[in-house]
């Protein structure tokens, strides 16, 4: 099997000129819980440009999946979008009817879920599941549907796809299942693919294979990708631009080189320094304390209780989104 995709894309600035494909502005989402209304997203804003990969990084509970699910309109019932816009192709997706949105989901925008092992139905053969997506997205049936399914599986490096169509999910490895899920997501020729931690459950070698595959698919289909992860090395490997989330907010946003070389937000800086790098032996930086639970919102900066440079202003009032060099922003009073 050939796991090596085409060589990586050139530096992202080459693609800069185009207008954004997707614009998320001030997206705010609240959950109704036993403890009252809980704000899971707080004025989240970012752009996605054609053909680029935007990384959304953050720790557990920071709001990455809620962001993805808001775009896909797959929020749980107790969630409500209480503010903001999601603009695609000049339209605010939040104002579309369910019927109109069916023309978007899977066709314009598609998603690969966090858990590859549960996003396939264990009781149906692979062929049925991929075929179902082909029918829904492209209206194909019978032999045309089968032929398209085989093409899709071949496109994600599944060896002997004609035979694999007859397998059940449990007869495939985790890496292979994740590729089948991706094939399903690509059935409608989407322009945007949202990947929510697609490699977290995979071995390092299989993860690297999958990332290379994804890069190849991006070239082949001209996809724009939103890549959600908690792993900065995945960001370094895949992303053109990065948004760092903490406690439902995007704390820092910018070009991937800018973020790695000149992180402006204390949280980003601490995160980058807390990961062991291969072969290095210096003591790891730690971030004291725990990520906040969204239930007890503080008046000032949400990161203040853990921030090494917090001052009285930080504890008293929320920082604004400060614009730094090109397209680099940081939600912090002390950003320079």
């Amino acid at each position, binding site marked *: 099997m050939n796991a090596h995709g085409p060589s990586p894309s050139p530096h992202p600035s080459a693609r800069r000129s185009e207008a954004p494909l997707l614009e998320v502005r001030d997206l705010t989402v609240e959950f109704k819980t036993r403890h009252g209304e809980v704000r899971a997203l707080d004025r989240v804003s970012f752009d996605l440009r054609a053909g680029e990969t935007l990384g959304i990084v953050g720790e557990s509970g920071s709001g990455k999946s809620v962001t993805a699910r808001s775009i896909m309109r797959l929020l749980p019932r107790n969630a409500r979008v209480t503010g903001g816009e999601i603009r695609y192709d000049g339209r605010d997706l939040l104002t579309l009817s369910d019927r109109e949105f069916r023309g978007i989901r899977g066709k314009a925008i598609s998603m690969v879920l966090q858990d590859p092992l549960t996003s396939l139905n264990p009781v149906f053969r692979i062929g049925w599941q991929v075929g179902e997506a082909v029918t829904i997205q492209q209206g194909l049936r019978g032999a045309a549907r089968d032929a398209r399914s085989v093409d899709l599986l071949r496109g994600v490096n599944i060896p002997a796809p004609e035979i694999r169509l007859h397998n059940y999910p449990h007869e495939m490895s985790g890496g292979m299942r994740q590729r089948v899920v991706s094939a399903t997501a690509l059935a409608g020729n989407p322009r945007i693919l949202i990947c929510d931690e697609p490699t977290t459950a995979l071995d*390092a070698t299989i993860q690297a*294979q999958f990332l290379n595959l994804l890069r190849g698919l991006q070239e082949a289909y001209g996809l724009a990708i939103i890549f959600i992860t908690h792993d900065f*090395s995945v960001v370094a*490997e895949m992303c053109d631009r990065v948004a760092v989330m903490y406690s439902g907010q995007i704390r820092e946003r910018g070009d991937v080189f800018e973020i790695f070389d000149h992180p402006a937000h204390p949280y980003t800086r601490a995160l980058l320094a*807390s990961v062991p790098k291969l072969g290095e032996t210096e003591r*790891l930086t730690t971030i004291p304390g725990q990520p906040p639970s969204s239930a007890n919102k503080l008046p000032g900066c949400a990161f203040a209780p853990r921030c090494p440079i917090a001052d009285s202003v930080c504890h008293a009032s929320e920082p604004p989104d400060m614009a730094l060099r090109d397209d680099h922003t940081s939600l912090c009073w002390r950003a320079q």
Partner: protein
Amino acid sequence: MSAMTADVPVLEFRNASKHFALSRDRVVRALDGIDLVLEAGQTIGVVGESGCGKTTLSKLALMLQRPTGGEVLFRDMEVGAFGREDWRRFRTSVQAVFQDPWSSLNPRMRVIDIIAEPLVASSSMPRVEREARAARLMDDVGLPRAFLSRFPHELSGGQRQRVAIARALSIEPRLIVLDEPVSSLDVSIRSQVINLLKDLQEQRGYGYLLIGHDLATVAYISHRIAVMYLGRIVEINTSAELISDPKHPYTQGLLAAHLADHPAQRGRNVPLGGEVPSPLSPPPGCHFHTRCPKAMEICSRVEPMSISSGAGLVACHLYGQAG
């Protein structure tokens, strides 16, 4: 602090195997001919792809399973020869921390009782003393003492994992088996736990058998690393040498799959092709030959023996004995 007898290895595998018979002719060779020595106060890291036998190795180390061949020794004693007193000593010297802090703590017990439990089982320490000790352990792992009266569901994942570590430390163990201890933790919590593990070893001389899948993290914590493939150790060496000068093509493949630490290095990883074959019918000869970019004719016929190379051992026909 350490009253260790440094000359006796804390744990030793001698040609140890573990085979699971699924039926008469279907046998999973989860471990095959493992040789491994863990000296007191040291860390051996074990890496390899899913299903290569890491957890089985940790179960043998904890004597939760018996080898089907060869021997596993704790401080020079074969477990088959353990008497009642040896078992008591074993239980008071060996502890484990598992990947999933959600399932490894008893949900109906308070933190204080969870931490003190190994003491109840292994000594006649009075209750007040046990509780004082539990409180000191909370300090050691950086948790507020107020959490002693909480139940596990009232703690975050990182806090639970620290409770699991505090519990493992309650009896001053000589050996702690750590099976993916930080994989389930958030990045910011992970570095706290990693630093804690390193500090405790330095201060008290615990031996660690550390199982992990992230090479950078395992190398950061371990003195030596064993690389496993389909139930066998294919290379073992000091962390520094294994990373700077990997000998076995599988180790080279794992390192080549390592993702960039900085975007300037992107696209350099060249992952191994294919996937691990089924352990029910591992390829003959060198198990790795179906994926090895350097495979030779002999590789599919003859199993390579381990030979020493630098500070380590490597099992590959490229070194020494190739025909």
